[in-house]
C-alpha cells in the first residue's frame, strides 16, 4: 500500500453488500466474504458495521473487524465469532448464505490501524486476531513481513483462526489450554518470553482481545520495554 492512500474517516452511508462466501474458521466462528458496491477503502485494523433488519422493522447492528488486507478490490472478509445469546452473530454464523444481501457501513476507526509502512508488534487473543490478520496479510502481500512480529494466543489448536495461514517466520502461536502433539511450549497464558525479542524500540504495538487479555498483554509489553504511548488497544468486550 502506498502512504498516499488516505482512507476517508467518515464511513458514509449504509450500503448493500452481497455475501459471496461463508466458511468456518473454528466450530464457533465463520469468515464472511462480502462484495461491496464499490472497492473497499479500508485500512488494516478497521471495522465495518453490519445491520440486520427483520420484517417488522426491528434492526440490530454490530461491528466486525475486517480480516482481509486492503487490496483495492470490492471484496472484504469479516470473521464473526458466534456469541452465546448473540442476536447478530448467531444469525450471521447460522443463517447467512452466499447470495444473501447484507447492509454494511464502514470502514470505521482511525486509531487501531496499521498503514503498512512502520514496525508493528501484533498481539492477539482469541477472536482478537481478526484485525491483526488484516495487518499480517497486508505485510505479506506487500513484501514487508520484516516490519511485523505477531503473537497469537488461542485456547487450543481447534480454536485458532486462520490456522493454516498464520505460521511463518514473523509469527508465533501460544496455546493456553491444549497444545498440538509435540508442541514445544507447554500450555499456559502469554508470558514475557513469548513476546518477540528483541522488540523494536520504535514499533507500535497493536493489542486486541478480551479486556483481561488486553490488560495482561499491555503489561507484558511494558515489562519488555515499550512505552504506554506505543501501545494501541482494541478490546472485545462482552458485546453481543
Amino acid at each position, binding site marked *: 500500500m502506498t502512504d498516499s492512500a488516505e482512507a476517508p*474517516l*467518515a*464511513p*458514509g452511508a449504509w450500503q*448493500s453488500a452481497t455475501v459471496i462466501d461463508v466458511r468456518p474458521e473454528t466450530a464457533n466462528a465463520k469468515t464472511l466474504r462480502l462484495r461491496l458496491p464499490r472497492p473497499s477503502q479500508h485500512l488494516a485494523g478497521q471495522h465495518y458495521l453490519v*445491520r*440486520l*433488519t*427483520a*420484517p*417488522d*422493522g*426491528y*434492526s*440490530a*447492528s*454490530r*461491528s466486525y473487524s475486517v480480516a482481509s488486507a486492503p487490496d483495492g478490490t470490492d471484496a472484504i472478509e469479516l470473521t464473526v465469532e458466534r456469541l452465546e445469546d448473540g*442476536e447478530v452473530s448467531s*444469525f450471521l454464523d447460522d*443463517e*447467512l448464505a452466499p447470495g*444473501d*444481501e*447484507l*447492509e454494511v457501513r464502514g470502514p*470505521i*476507526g*482511525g*486509531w*487501531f490501524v496499521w498503514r503498512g509502512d512502520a514496525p508493528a508488534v501484533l498481539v492477539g487473543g482469541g477472536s482478537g486476531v481478526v484485525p491483526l490478520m488484516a495487518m499480517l496479510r497486508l505485510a505479506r502481500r506487500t513484501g514487508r513481513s520484516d516490519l511485523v512480529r505477531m503473537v497469537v494466543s488461542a485456547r487450543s489448536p481447534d480454536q485458532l483462526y486462520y490456522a493454516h495461514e498464520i505460521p511463518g517466520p514473523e509469527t508465533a502461536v501460544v496455546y493456553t489450554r491444549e497444545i498440538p502433539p509435540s508442541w514445544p511450549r507447554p500450555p499456559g497464558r502469554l508470558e514475557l518470553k513469548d513476546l518477540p525479542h528483541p522488540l523494536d524500540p520504535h514499533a507500535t504495538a497493536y493489542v486486541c482481545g478480551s*479486556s483481561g487479555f488486553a*490488560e495482561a498483554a*499491555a503489561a507484558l509489553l*511494558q515489562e519488555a520495554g515499550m512505552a*504506554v*504511548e506505543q*501501545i*494501541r*488497544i*482494541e*478490546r472485545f*468486550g*462482552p*458485546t*453481543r
Partner: protein
Amino acid sequence: MAFTRGFKGRGGGPRDPRLPPGQYDVGAEWPILSAEVTPSLPLASWTFSVDGLVERPVTWTWDEMQALPGSTYDGDIHCVTSWSKLGTAFSGVSVDPLLAAAGPLPSASYVMAWSHTGYSTNLPLEDVADGKSWIAWEHEGQPLTAEHGGPARLLVPHLYFWKSAKWIARLELMDHDEPGFWEQNGYHDHGDPWLEQRFQGD
C-alpha cells in the same frame, strides 16, 4: 428499509422506549472499551482542573473533590458501539459547581475534556452545564474501577459514552470547537444518541 432474509429479530414484545435508535440493552453487563493502556492513578497525586477561558483556573485534589456536595445520576448510558445500559447509577459531583468556581469567560462556548492518559473529547459547554454532566467516582455504590475510568471519569450520559472521558484530568474551556481523540478518528463532534450522531457526517 432493506430486510435481511431470514432475520426475525428478537420477537420479544415492544422495544424499550429508553433505547435510542440502533441501540440494544446490554442488561447487567458493562463492556469495557478503551484505546489505551489502563493507567494506575494514585489518589494522593490525583488532581482535576478547570482551565482555559475562565476567570481563574482551579485545581482540586481528591480530598477536595470528595468534600464538595455530592450528586447522583440514575439513568441510562449509551455506547456508540450500540449497547446501552439502562437504569444505572453513578455518584460524584455535578460539573456545575466546578465550572462556577472557575468562572467561565463569556467567550467560552466549548470544552475539551482531557484524561490523565492524554485522551481527549470535545463538547459544547452547554452540554456539560446545567445539571447535564458529572465527575463520577462511584458506580452502583462502589468505587469506579480503573478499567471503567476510575478513580474518576467525566459522565455526560445524554451523549454517546466516548464523551464521558475516563480518567478525567481537566476541562479546558475554549471559544471554538476542536475535534478530540475519537472525533479526529471519524466519530461525531456532538454524539447525540437520539439523533444517531455516531460518525462524522451523521
